[in-house]
């Protein structure tokens, strides 16, 4: 059985994580889009910390008989891996986008300085300045 103190300490830690993430969103330092995985982590850990019977049951399933709280570590690790992997994809997208932005800015600058227009990619609509606000948004 999980020691009561472990359950209490882990619950407090999980609640802290949820509150910190919430405050970061509230103060606009973290977008909802990137907070969802963190909140899922916090909620999963809170449930497993507080619901001691459940933790024991899951420990039984995966063959952890000596020390059920080890399952907490395992679950936390899985979630942290998921967050990291997600962020790796986000960073890749951002780096692609900043390449495109730099190229567009450089072409516009050349065009503005020389007065000779660069032909737009598809010969259709005009090339215009790029708003950099919300450049991280993508439907991916």
């Amino acid at each position: 059985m999980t020691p009561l103190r472990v359950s209490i300490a882990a619950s407090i830690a999980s609640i802290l994580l949820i509150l910190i993430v919430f405050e970061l969103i509230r103060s606009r330092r973290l977008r909802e889009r990137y907070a969802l995985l963190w909140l899922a982590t916090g909620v999963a850990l809170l449930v497993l910390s507080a619901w001691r019977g459940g933790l024991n049951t899951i420990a039984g399933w995966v063959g952890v008989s000596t020390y059920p709280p080890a399952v907490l570590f395992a679950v936390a690790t899985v979630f942290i891996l998921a967050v990291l992997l997600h962020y790796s994809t986000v960073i890749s997208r951002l780096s692609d986008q900043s390449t495109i932005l730099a190229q567009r800015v450089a072409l516009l600058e050349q065009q503005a300085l020389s007065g000779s227009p660069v032909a737009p990619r598809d010969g259709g609509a005009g090339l215009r300045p790029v708003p950099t606000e919300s450049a991280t948004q993508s439907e991916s």
Partner: protein
Amino acid sequence: MSEPPLSAPRRIAIVPARNEEGAIGLVVAEIRAFDPGLDVLVIDDGSVDRTAARAAEAGATVVRLPFNLGIGGAVQTGFMYALAHGYELAVRLDGDGQHDPSELPKLIEPVLRGDADIVVGSRFAAPPFDGDTDSYRPPLARRAGIRFFAGIVSLLVRQRVTDTTSGFQALNGKGIRLFADDYPHDYPEVEATVMVVKHRLRLLEVPVLMREREHGSSSITALRSAYYVLKVTLALLVGVFRRKAVPARD
């Protein structure tokens, strides 16, 4: 086709479009036929087809985003353009043709009369919603989602709101300024509704008919629905705990 709404203010139609080469030309042409004094601005949100070229051929000014920003970033680009060019009235229509320009007077007139700062066209505001012929009727799951958010938003803004996902809107200068300054990111309409009221702008809903999409598919697919609901619910929840927004500059 009703008569052009007044000779009055400088006005612009903001049309976000992504991969709508099949529909965008007609959308732009319809808007221009409805009111030749309405400048049409198409925000091409990272299309990989000929959306930008089709829109330009039909007579729109086109802003091409270098990559896909999502609807929030695209629409806000339009509001930034409108603000920078001194437009006093903006309407927003989707680039897929589901918003009928002949419905625009219903949206524009309350703004011109000074009854509201932002007017939203609602599919559900009109009482006889069943059995009608033309009106667009979303699938059951979407209707449930729309109802869910309409209920929450109505509570938050203390005003009856029936369609929080409508992108069919008209705004005056105050609305343009607010949205150019601050606009929610992906799936923006629900949060924007709350934001408008928090900034003490007057919001009005009017019943409109919407058409079925003619081309392409909705940006909200099955997989994204879960993200949509979670993200918007979280944003609304967090919004409750944000400090009262400052009134918009005036």
